[in-house]
């Protein structure tokens, strides 16, 4: 019985810790994808500016309120524009950014393939 009680206590403590760690993980993931507007070039996660500290607090608050990761990104995008996100969405302003690497990869692949075919022949 004593062992059962102890195992319950351990289970309770560990489940609580993992819950906290999960929230921390999501917070880190989100703040790493948010750009600091004061010290540009740094993510909110890396920055210690007053602005970045406030953003970290607000991300925590939003997570506690039950906001999903995408909802939090949408919230910051609405306030500061899409530039605050390190991973911009595919739209008319960013399609070159997203499609150019694919295009270069395909063209490069085609050139290599063609060279091989010529050599084999």
């Amino acid at each position, binding site marked *: 019985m004593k062992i059962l009680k102890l195992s319950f206590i351990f289970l309770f403590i560990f489940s609580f810790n993992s819950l906290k760690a999960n929230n921390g993980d999501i917070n880190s993931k989100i703040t790493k994808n948010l750009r600091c507007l004061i010290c540009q070039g740094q993510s909110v996660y890396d920055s210690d500016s007053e*602005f970045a500290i*406030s953003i970290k607090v607000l991300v925590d608050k939003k997570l506690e309120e039950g906001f999903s990761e995408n909802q939090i990104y949408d919230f910051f995008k609405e*306030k500061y524009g899409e530039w605050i996100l390190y991973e911009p969405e595919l739209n008319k302003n960013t399609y070159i950014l997203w499609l150019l690497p694919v295009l270069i990869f395909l063209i490069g692949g085609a050139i290599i393939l063609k060279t091989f075919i010529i050599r084999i022949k």
Partner: protein
Amino acid sequence: MKNKLLPVFITTIFIIIFLFLYKGLQNSNIYTPEVKINNKIPSFSGELFYEEKIIDTSDLFKLDKIYLVNIWSSWCVPCRQEHSLLMNLKKIYNIELIGINYKDTKINAKNFLSELGDPYRKIIFDKKGINAIEWGAYGVPESFLIKDGIIIKRYVGPLNQKLLSEINQLIK
């Protein structure tokens, strides 16, 4: 013929990429968030500075009044510079000032107001700086002109006499 075309094709692609990146070098790498106006007042709860109770923004702003929301702090030097203008704004124009005290201590903020005057009808005490983010602000001072429940103008940085005249024109 095909072998001759390939180097021309590759060189053209490289030139296009080079020109594209070179043009990018001319752009400023300092980003300023676009000033969004004609937005509704953000909905959030904040702590009132004197009353020490939580209030919702929907209870703070009335549709038939004109407001200037001013984000300020006692440690902010430009806030000190614009404060006399805010005092004039309160006296002269038909406008209500709502202050957001950003990342400050109450003692310092009270000293600041007793020294320079208190132009605000209500002050939200934003100790963690999260209320300012709801407004899309990223520093102090910043001001938002509100008419009919809509943000019609945003001022990043301290107000000056010219901007005050502009506010006067806008609220007429």
